[in-house]
């Protein structure tokens, strides 16, 4: 199991053997990250580098025997460790960042001391291997990471049953994002430029589409997302009406991420928690998740058609298809698109990412609306396909939801442009019950913001919310 929390007498126990094995010299770089004052994120990084299967921080908690705390603290000092005592801090509020280069922080009120990884790995640690009966030390236990309950709840089964390394990575990414948002920890440039551009408010894409000033929410409008499924437990979607169905023989739960991202843009919340910017458009829409692509991102035309049939049978007003393949236009997609329009539905598809190559299927069918991608400077994205294009939308560096534990991710593609049009389509549909099918198609194009580029690249221009 992940958390080896069992208290062990150090003799032959996990703590001691671990200390010995990690003092062999190969862990020198990691050890520096497990001083008593290491920021949590440094320790998380070190834990990831160790690649182990535990939630251990690399530090150790020494518990003193009852009544032997003073003696125990002194004994650590005798062994050459630099001891910081919580009683020397105001209200005994010793924060680990305050103790400088101390090896040990003692908390006499609870009879516990925290020993840094360096000190634990030094030869002094081996003296703990045998705890004499007259030792003031009761036990030595590896310290474990502790996560906020909300986060653990979000993790659910994944944290318990699968790889904690992935869990830690996800947590670290979240911590980095928060740190950047708060403007702290600015040591060098961010690892990837893409993930550092979020600001409070709304994403660049929503702003470009004039979504934040819109009074519309897509209330009561059914939106279908035919994709890799959805993270049904994503905290940003708690309480939302979600109908889901799989067409690929796998559970709807999205283990890829693509479907969670496109759903987020089209249907995400008005006010995500904390400093997360608004990234979703139709925040009161009813969400219909049709899993037509597997967790590895593959599918077949037949499965996709089954998903389209389902979405139309449910009379979803807008249907997002951020998928496709070469060839076409195919009669079956054209027929499905026509059936959608006949039933007051509108299928909107990604133009494809093989630009400057031609629009892929199903977006190249005349009955399906094709969406090109724009960069933040409102020029066509280099990857965006050309040819049959009805409209354009933000597709470069799009921030949206991602399956837990990552929660959010910034990615690019016409797949990300498509749900901007779908979301805006839901807002328009809310304004009038006559805006369905072909009427909605025409409205989206008529209200698009003109751009100084050929219609083969941007269609009628940048989609706009009502």
């Amino acid at each position, binding site marked *: 199991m992940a958390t080896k929390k069992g208290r062990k007498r150090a003799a032959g126990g996990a703590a001691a053997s671990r200390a010995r094995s990690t003092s062999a010299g190969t862990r020198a770089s990691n050890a520096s990250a497990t001083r008593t004052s290491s920021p949590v994120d440094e320790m998380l990084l070190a834990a990831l580098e160790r690649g182990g299967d535990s939630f251990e921080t690399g530090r150790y908690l020494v518990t003193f025997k009852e009544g032997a705390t003073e003696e125990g603290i002194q004994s650590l000092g005798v062994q050459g460790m630099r001891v910081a005592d919580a009683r020397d801090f105001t209200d005994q509020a010793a924060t680990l960042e305050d103790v400088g280069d101390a090896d040990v922080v003692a908390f006499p009120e609870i009879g516990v001391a925290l020993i840094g990884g360096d000190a634990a790995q030094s030869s002094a640690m081996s003296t703990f291997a045998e705890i004499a009966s007259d030792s003031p030390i009761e036990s030595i236990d590896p310290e474990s990471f502790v996560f906020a309950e909300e986060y653990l709840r979000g993790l659910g089964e994944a944290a318990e049953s699968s790889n904690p390394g992935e869990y830690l990575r996800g947590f670290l990414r979240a911590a980095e994002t928060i740190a950047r948002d708060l403007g702290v920890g600015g040591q060098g440039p961010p690892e990837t430029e893409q993930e550092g551009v979020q600001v409070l408010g709304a994403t660049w894409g929503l702003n470009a589409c004039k979504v934040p000033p819109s009074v519309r929410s897509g209330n009561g409008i059914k939106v279908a997302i035919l994709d890799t499924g959805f993270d049904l437990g994503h905290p940003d979607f708690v309480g939302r009406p979600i109908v889901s169905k799989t067409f690929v023989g796998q559970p709807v739960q999205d283990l890829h991420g693509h479907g969670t991202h496109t759903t987020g843009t089209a249907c995400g919340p008005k006010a995500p928690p904390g400093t997360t910017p608004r990234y979703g458009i139709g925040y009161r829409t009813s969400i219909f998740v049709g899993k037509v692509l597997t967790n590895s991102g593959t*599918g*077949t035309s037949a499965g996709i058609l089954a998903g389209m*049939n389902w979405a139309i049978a449910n009379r979803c007003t807008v249907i997002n298809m951020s998928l496709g393949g070469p060839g076409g236009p*195919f009669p079956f997609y054209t027929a499905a698109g026509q059936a959608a329009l006949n039933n007051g539905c509108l299928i909107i598809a990604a133009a494809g990412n093989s630009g400057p190559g031609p629009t892929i299927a199903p977006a190249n069918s005349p009955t399906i609306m094709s969406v090109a991608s724009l960069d933040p400077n409102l020029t066509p994205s280099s990857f965006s396909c050309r040819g049959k294009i009805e409209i354009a939308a933000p597709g470069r560096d799009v921030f949206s939801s991602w399956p837990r534990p990552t929660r959010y991710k910034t990615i690019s593609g016409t797949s990300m442009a498509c749900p901007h049009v779908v979301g805006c389509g839901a807002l328009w549909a809310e304004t009038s019950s006559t805006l369905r099918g072909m009427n909605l198609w025409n409205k989206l194009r008529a209200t698009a913001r003109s751009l100084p580029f050929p219609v083969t690249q941007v269609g009628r221009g940048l989609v706009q919310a009502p």
Partner: protein
Amino acid sequence: MAEKKKLIITTSGDRPLSAIKKDLAKRGFAVGQVLKEIGIITGTSSAAIEKLRAIPGVDDVSPDESVDIGPPDAPVM
């Protein structure tokens, strides 16, 4: 014996799907799904595509293609 192919039958709407389904079955087409909303029948067959296309009410017979959006860490999706 020709290899069985996954096929997608697009109908014109001129005939009931049930009638077309019967004609397809007579020609050795194993019906997978009948998608009523969009007038499409999927399944597998080793019959020549031309034979199936000749059935009244059938607009098109196309092979089922695979679609791939790439892995989660693809640079562009």
